[in-house]
């Protein structure tokens, strides 16, 4: 595939990549989860990342999220090589993740889940007191922007799948991230709520965010993505504009019926 040069638009006019992966590999002992994956995504672009179970999607997500470093390869953010020391570091550098299991604490109210790890606090001596009022207000605004019925004070334990989804997505809007990575956001929610999530992805795109959508659901990928990349057994077997492919071809690539495209 062609790859844009660092920080410059590539010859066919694609904008500079906000995130670029070069030759990313990861092995756990003798198991090679990823081998030499290249991937690039620009602002305002939605990239669908597909692959069967065990294809290496989760591993790739965790590398981008800073959960663990790649065994080999480079990560570039805005053309600059970066190395993430843990998830908070990746988040600090502008990468927001919506995890598949949403990473919520169901004993806490929605608002505190939104702010978990970056609470609004008032320092008094050695103590950092939570500014609950400010967090509840801001979370309420975020839920309103997302057109979600979620209330900041409700415990996550008592919420529906869609409301939980809204909590996890509201988190990504606390900052102005460079990249939002969504891991199977539509896997466990109702049809009506899927439409809401897809709307949200479009809104992120409109506000010039880069979005990576990891999904098993072909209709969702074809509804919102500009481009689709397919992983199979740890390598990237396809990376093409959504207009140049079809669900049938992508299915073939995922299963291995089609080698590469």
């Amino acid at each position: 595939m062609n790859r844009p040069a660092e920080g410059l638009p590539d010859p066919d006019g694609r904008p500079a990549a906000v995130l670029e992966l070069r030759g990313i590999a990861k092995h756990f002992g003798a198991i090679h989860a990823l081998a030499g994956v290249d991937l690039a995504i620009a602002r305002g672009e939605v990239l669908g990342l597909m692959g069967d179970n065990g294809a290496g999607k989760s591993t790739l997500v965790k590398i981008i999220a800073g959960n663990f470093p790649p065994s080999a390869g480079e990560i570039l953010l805005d053309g600059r090589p970066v190395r993430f020391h843990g998830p908070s570091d990746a988040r600090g550098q502008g990468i927001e993740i919506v995890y598949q299991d949403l990473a919520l604490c169901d004993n806490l109210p929605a608002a505190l889940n939104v702010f978990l790890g970056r609470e609004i606090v008032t320092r008094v001596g050695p103590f950092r007191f939570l500014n609950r009022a400010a967090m509840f207000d801001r979370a309420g605004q975020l839920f309103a922007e997302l057109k979600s019925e979620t209330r900041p004070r409700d415990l996550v334990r008592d919420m529906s799948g869609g409301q939980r989804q809204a909590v996890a997505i509201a988190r990504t809007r606390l900052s102005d991230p460079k990249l939002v990575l969504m891991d199977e956001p539509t896997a466990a929610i109702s049809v009506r709520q899927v439409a809401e999530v897809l709307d949200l992805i479009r809104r992120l795109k409109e506000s010039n965010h880069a979005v990576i959508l990891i999904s098993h659901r072909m209709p969702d990928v074809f509804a919102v993505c500009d481009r689709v990349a397919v992983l199979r057994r740890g390598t990237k077997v396809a990376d093409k504009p959504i207009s140049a492919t079809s669900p049938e071809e992508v299915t073939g690539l995922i299963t291995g019926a089609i080698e590469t495209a």
Partner: protein
Amino acid sequence: MSIETGSRPTPAKAPVPAAALAARYAAPLFLLILVLVFAVLEPRFLSPFNLMNVLRQVSISGLIALGMTFVILTAGIDLSVGSLLALCGLVAAYVAKGGLDDRFAVGAGVEAGNPVPLALGAAILVGMAGGAIQGWIITRLRVPPFVVTLGGLTAFRGAALLFSGGGPISGFTPDYTWWGLGRVMDVPVPVIVFAVAAIIAHVVLRYTRFGLHVYATGANPAAANLNAVNTRRVIFSVYVIVGFFCGLASFLLMARLNSAEAVAGLQLELDVIAAVVIGGTSLFGGVGGIVGTVVGALLIGVLRNGLVLLNVSSFIQQIVIGIVLVAAVAVDQYAARRRQEV
């Protein structure tokens, strides 16, 4: 996570079922009933002297139960508190005496070897160090807390026996014994220390970022980690905190008994854990708090005291407290099940 497919209506201010509500207030309700029953059966129970006595007895294990609440909220456990208390008390006594030369000297003519803050500081330092060692093993070597602190239970007791050479260290100056026997406006000093500590612990858990992270770590450590909560540091800290309370409590106990010995606090961990659990803090982490623990500690104290006043044998007391403990957890489990059904 549960897979929810159907679009479910927003729970309109989720109705709390009566059963769950009853479960939440079971411990304070039971405490109230106990107080009433003992008051009727034995008039001496409600005398200010007796009530203060109950509070003073509760304050030692209650202090450690405050620390234990942090630990259990992270879904951990600390079985070593009784042994650590004994070791801290001996160190405090050693510092108080300025050595072991006149370890048995009691009564008039006893001289302080070192000022009170030094002995108190030494006890707390040893407690925090003991907690830090266990916290380090739990978080870095990933040995389950139950195993680590079971080892601590034996090891700290052994260290205490070794340190003391088998005998007690007794006889402290009045500025020491004041911490155990003194009163301020008729309230015993240990009770005041317990009350102040409980308020601080409550504020830290409910209103600070650290407290929030304790709850988050207990409920879903993986999620907390993904949200940049340093769960390792949180877990390490709670063992240091319970160690701090062991040191503080050991000092008060030494002052009250005017003696420190290696067999102090035997089986104390049972009372402490019972207080926390009866108070509604879930052993699975993430649910509970200081208010419940104070109620739980009071409940055990009142139960013990009332049964003593009624001349119930101490064997039967143990049976009753065992039953209350199991009943409390059964009620808690029932409430948790109801919560999931909501």
